């Protein structure tokens, strides 16, 4: 599974690094920093949760 973050949509809600700190971190402004662009196994579920909880729909998941 591949992950992509649309930086121009992220406004720093921080749900992704709250819910999936293995995959996302915050930059200095509190915006999303993608740590792991390709995920497999149990982390796929975490990636989906993060994407589904982003109010800006800034996280794109593709298989």
């Amino acid at each position, binding site marked *: 599974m591949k992950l992509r973050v649309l930086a121009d949509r992220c*406004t*720093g*809600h*921080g749900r992704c690094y*709250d819910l999936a700190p293995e995959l996302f971190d*915050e930059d200095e402004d*509190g*915006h999303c920093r993608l740590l792991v662009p390709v995920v497999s196994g149990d982390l796929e579920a975490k990636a989906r949760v993060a994407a589904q909880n982003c*109010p*800006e729909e800034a996280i794109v998941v593709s298989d």
Partner: protein
Amino acid sequence: MTDPESPEPAQEAGSADAVNLFSGEFARCPQPVYRDLVSRCPVAHSVLGDGKVISRYEDVIWALRNPQIFSSEMELQLALGTERPMIPQQVDPPAQTRYRKVLDPRFSKKRMREIEPDIRRHANALIDAFADTGQCDFARDFAVPLPCTAFLSLMGLPHEELPRFLRMKDGIIRPQELVEEEVPDFAAMQALRVQTGKDIYAYFRDVIEDRRRAPGDDMISYLLETEVDGARLTDEDILDVSFLLILAGLDTVTATLECNIAYLAGHPAQRERLVADPALIPSAVEELMRWETPVTAVPRLVKEKVTLHGVDIEAGEMVSLLIGAANLDDEEFGNADAVEFDRARNRHLAFGGGAHRCLGSHLARLELQVAMEVWHERVPSYAIAPGAVPVFSPGIREIRSLPLVWANA
């Protein structure tokens, strides 16, 4: 007689196509009105004549993400006692982006985590004062002082200033409760706002001078020192940020704590779930923010004509984006009408969205999570005192007095 199978929405709160967002009944129990608006009237009229009311999730998030159409530059329309727009709330991109570059790092989750021990200690100290008595006024004794003191710490201001700050924010947000007339009229309310605004500017002008002489680790010193794009903020900029921080920082978490505890006092099974499984608290905090949405709506000024669900909204009109209603939209939330603490997908808009996403959201989440944890460790079982009827204030749903009782172990 009305058909019992099809209940009418509460009349005081308005019918489906004309809604009163400032009625007491709506503030107490907005959810049925929200559900009705979302399903039957996605663009309603405000009975107060202050513009249209937009309710569906997809419309609200679209408006939030398009500030060039739905502008926040409405200082004159809102008339909150300011002499200039509040920064960054009443400034749109691109100018707003520069201010957020200065402010966002100061309110990041990492930075907020540093003050978690202080918030936890303070929450415990507040409870120490009344735990053994088996009763308190949750508003006066906990929900007001906890976030307000955290705010004063961040600003580097003495905690004894709390009463002054509470008067300043109430003088702007709910002047009707401070005007000493039985039926406060608009002119009296507005005069109090203007006077309060002057007091806020004067107070912070002095703070800026103090910090310039003796910088510290506080917000104002930081704002004086930080450069963005090679330029520092002006003193007026800093005053306009401070004005916003008072309004946004002193009221919202208080209201949210009150809404949460009132809900849990009325739903003992839900409360018992949280007590039994404190790991649920972070997602429960999100779910209660969705369900209660203490800041019910955010205003915007329409810059170009739009037509939404067949309703024309003209340039120059004000609209209310009813984030509380968007948060109960079935199109976005499965089982939107149920409070589910383990909801897996929750893109609620209680903090708004788009460029103006609440600057203090990470501070608010931290305060709410710590407060809910500590409170339920210390006072796991409680009820609203017999005979007490919580009164919710409109707009931002504060409960001015919330008497609780519990049996001591």
